[in-house]
């Protein structure tokens, strides 16, 4: 699948998020993942993973920029390297060896389950979850949604946090 990422910074005002999400629905954009977080300057950051077989990310970028709440839209490209997602999954203790080395157990329940924490790319998280489920060892799981960082440290363009 041909996918790309956009990072939209949106003014945190009443209705702003709804307007941005409503635009995606109204224009029938093929957005595969959407995650929302609060930026250092109190703006909202929307990370959109776009299926470019249906929608060009430039078109999405232009349409988002047509909204007055949208402060900026960064094109993170088709294959940004710095994307991460967090997985929390309650699993059977016997499944722990099947988890990758980067995973760690952060809690154990009285019923004998253990809570696994794993950070990785969305594709890595998909793989791990699929493998665990194959063995019927996942009780429940939550994912944080995708996060992406710019390729350059902010200091490079003199835009450090203030």
């Amino acid at each position, binding site marked *: 699948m041909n996918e790309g990422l956009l990072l939209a910074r949106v*003014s*945190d*005002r*009443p*209705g702003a998020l*709804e*307007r941005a999400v*409503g635009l995606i629905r*109204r224009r029938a954009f093929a957005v595969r993942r959407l995650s929302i977080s609060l930026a250092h300057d*109190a*703006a909202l950051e929307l990370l959109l993973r776009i299926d470019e077989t249906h929608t060009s990310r430039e*078109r999405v970028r*232009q*349409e988002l*920029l*047509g*909204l*007055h*709440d*949208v*402060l*900026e839209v960064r094109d993170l490209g088709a294959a940004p390297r710095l994307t991460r997602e967090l997985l929390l999954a309650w699993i059977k203790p016997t499944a722990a060896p099947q988890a990758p080395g980067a995973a760690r157990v952060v809690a154990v329940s009285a019923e004998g389950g253990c809570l696994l924490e794993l950070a990785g790319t969305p594709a890595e998280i998909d793989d791990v979850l699929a493998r665990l489920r194959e063995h019927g060892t996942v009780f429940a799981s939550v994912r944080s949604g995708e996060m992406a960082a710019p390729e350059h440290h902010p200091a490079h363009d003199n835009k450090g946090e203030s």
Partner: protein
Amino acid sequence: MTRSTVADEFCRLLIGEGVAVVFGHPGGAILPFYDSLQRVGAPRHILMRHEQAAAHAADGYARATGRTGVCIATSGPGATNLVTGLATAMMDSVPMVAITGQVPTSVRGTDAFQETDVLGVTMPVTKHGFSLERAADLTRVVQEAFRIARSGRPGPVLIDIPKDVQNAALVHAEPATTPLRRMPAAAFDNTLFTRILELLGQAERPLIMAGRGVIISDTAPALRRLAERADLPVVTTLLGLDAFPATHPQALGMPGMHGTVRACHAIQRADLILGLGLRFDDRVTGPVRSFAPNACIVHIDIDTPAAGRTVRAALRMNADLRAVLPAFADAVTPRRCAEWWSELQAWPRAAAPAAEWTAPDHALTARLTTRSLAARIAAARSIVVTDVGQHQMWIAQELRDAEPRTHLTSGGLGAMGYALPAAIGAAIACPRRSVWVVAGDGGFQMTLQELATVAQERIPLRIAVFNNGYLGMVRQWQELFYDRRYSAVELSSPDFPCLARAFGIPGRAVECAGQLADALDWAEQSPGPVLLDLRVAREENVFPMVPPGAALHEVVAAPVVGAV
């Protein structure tokens, strides 16, 4: 002494924004604002009989003047009734500010009486929306609303104000904690400008397609200068018909579903299309894959996202036509396109040959009626406001040299019921011009309660109702594409002249062709308002027509009179 409130200051801010007239309907949650309107004494308020009509009237006011129209409604049903008018303005790029009352903040979110999340409801049909939460934000919100409504591609903006905020005492304005982004003005791209001039010089079959952007930007004179200097044929969309004189030898007429045969074929044969201030919507293009197969398309529009939603332009220029169209007109190399013109002239320009617009039994045909009416409208330099349906297309086909801002219609949304209230707005905006309303019997019945507004305000409208006893355009589609299985299109109507008289408006019925000229004389010579009930042939169809799904060159130029 009464203290000054947010509502008082709101009225003063409206005056400061140049608002002379507002259209609205009061109710519980907007009472403080109406009290201020009365005490401040301005702007002038026109009491409409339905909030949809208030929005259409503000729309008509804005289209006729270029200024921002303002409409007002209360919370709940008042606000939701605005939606069709807001959507119309959004689709057709009409600057408008809608003000709605909201339940007090103390009960908001409790399903209070007449509470609706109007910001949420109107989000897809407004350019932006504000909820005024603090008195300190008033000035900024009002100023931002007007700026957004008229900047870039114009559109409607909604300001929702809880009742307690309207009643609040004025406080000093505070800066916004989270400012809105100001849309950057498009920079003049000299390289692109030069490249487009080169293409215009090299093309063998160049064509201009002009839309409402030319009207909004007041650049019709520059369009004409450009076309004449470079000998360019000009196609004008439904909303751009008044951007270029229809009787100009270089005018090809309207493109698309009910466009002229010449315009449709010209688009398909052109090797360069210069699109100026239009969206290339589906009614204009037909299936995009078959649109203008030979053309390099250059799209110039202020709305960046619009470029690329439908047709893929080879060159896109994000620009305000105010900045670039006069420059193109000045810089273009004068030339002649003799071969191209001889090819174009092989296709008919008129929508119907003269022999086909009279019926043998002297029945009143819609085509005859439209042509006679269009001639009167042109001669008197009247504003014409059409509704939606067959009559809308007939008027569009027969419209003569309309000056900019004199042809008003709901193009993008196609909202039946638009004409009468929008004409009220246009007539109030332009009291020295005569204003014609042209509506079908179906659309007219959607907002005819506004005859009461017309009578109360003594608005001198001339109202022509094309009365064929059908929802005509739907019937035409059922005849042509559903084997004449008429479903829910036959329409009974009141006796329109009698109804008009009940509102205090003189009315006459026209039954046959022989009565038409006399009735039009009467309508023109009356001080107005007047109503003509034009009982036209029942099953007349609009042609030319590009069948749905067909390419423009498959346009069908069928006989105009069907089963008369």
